């Protein structure tokens, strides 16, 4: 297998980042782990370095899109063959990383999205179900791509995707922006069911339902940039 990079965007995740990184390391012995510290004010950087990750730090907080954009750029500048994005808050299972990489490694896809709605639909809180469904619909309507999980944080990319995808959004709308880029760069997309582990902590860190409207407006504007 070529060089794999796991990008973990993190904003004030000192309490969980160490555990998350160790979990990834346990599943993937050879992967490089890059934590993009998005202007954290706590000890995220210290904890991440202690757990063995490479850390790149934004001096101020920009948002998820900003952090992932930096991570992808970092990968582009180096000889990275595959990239996986992974949430810092413990929502994802590290064993799912290899699952999402499989279609890429076998050459069947350029981008793989881990979808939480296939096997874990019942575990998703009802209010998130509504927002997720709306978001999936919006992704189809604005960008023409059908997906069952437009806001998933577990994604995998091959070198072609790393080189062509340009992230221009800053915040949570980046999850939807990936689909626009997939369409624009004519990348092959596959979905793989993954586990989702909702905790009070990860829910407090994730997308707020009240954000949904502004995400929609920003995505619309992104179409024109």
């Amino acid at each position, binding site marked *: 297998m070529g060089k794999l990079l796991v990008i973990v965007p993190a904003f004030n995740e000192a309490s969980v980042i160490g555990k998350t990184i160790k979990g990834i390391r346990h599943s993937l012995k050879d992967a490089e782990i890059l934590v993009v510290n998005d202007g954290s004010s706590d000890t995220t950087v210290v904890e991440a370095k202690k757990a063995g990750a490479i850390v*790149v730090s*934004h*001096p101020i907080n920009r948002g998820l899109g900003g952090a992932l954009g930096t991570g992808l750029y970092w990968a582009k500048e180096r000889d990275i063959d595959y990239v996986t994005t992974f949430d810092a808050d413990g929502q994802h299972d590290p064993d799912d990383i290899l699952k999402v990489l499989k279609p890429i490694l076998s050459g069947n896809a350029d981008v793989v999205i881990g979808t939480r709605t296939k096997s874990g639909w019942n575990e998703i809180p009802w209010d998130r179900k509504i927002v997720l469904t709306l978001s999936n619909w919006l992704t189809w309507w604005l960008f023409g791509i059908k997906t069952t999980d437009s806001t998933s944080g577990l994604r995998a990319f091959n070198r072609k995707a790393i080189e062509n995808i340009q992230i221009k959004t800053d915040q949570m709308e980046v999850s939807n922006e990936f689909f626009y880029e997939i369409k624009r760069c004519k990348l092959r997309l596959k979905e793989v069911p993954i586990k989702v582990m909702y905790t009070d902590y990860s829910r407090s860190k994730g997308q707020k339902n009240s954000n949904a409207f502004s995400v929609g407006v920003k995505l619309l504007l992104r179409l024109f940039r």
Partner: protein
Amino acid sequence: MTLGVISIVMNFITFPLQVIAIAFLIFAFSRVWLRAREGSIGRGMFLFWILVWMLVLVAVIRPDLTTQLAKKLGIGRGVDVVLYISIVTLFYLNFRSNVMIENLRHEITRLTRVIALSKK
């Protein structure tokens, strides 16, 4: 006789209003002029705002002109025409501001990225 009283009262009320409005317009023109002189606004913006305040001046001194415009457009009163045009203009200016703010935000992110990646 009542009509006469009413029209005198109306003149009494509208006259100070017009004086206040014109005083404000002199202030507004002076701001536009000063900002243009120091370079805070470009030529396009300068001309735009001069035009805006001129139109307001006309509407204040000759309200009957707005009524004529209203008749041409099929809208009830001159005031309504002014209001409708103002609202549309405000919507547009607000939209432009939002787009500019989003662009600023993206530029800041690009700068942040360069800083983050240049630290070793």
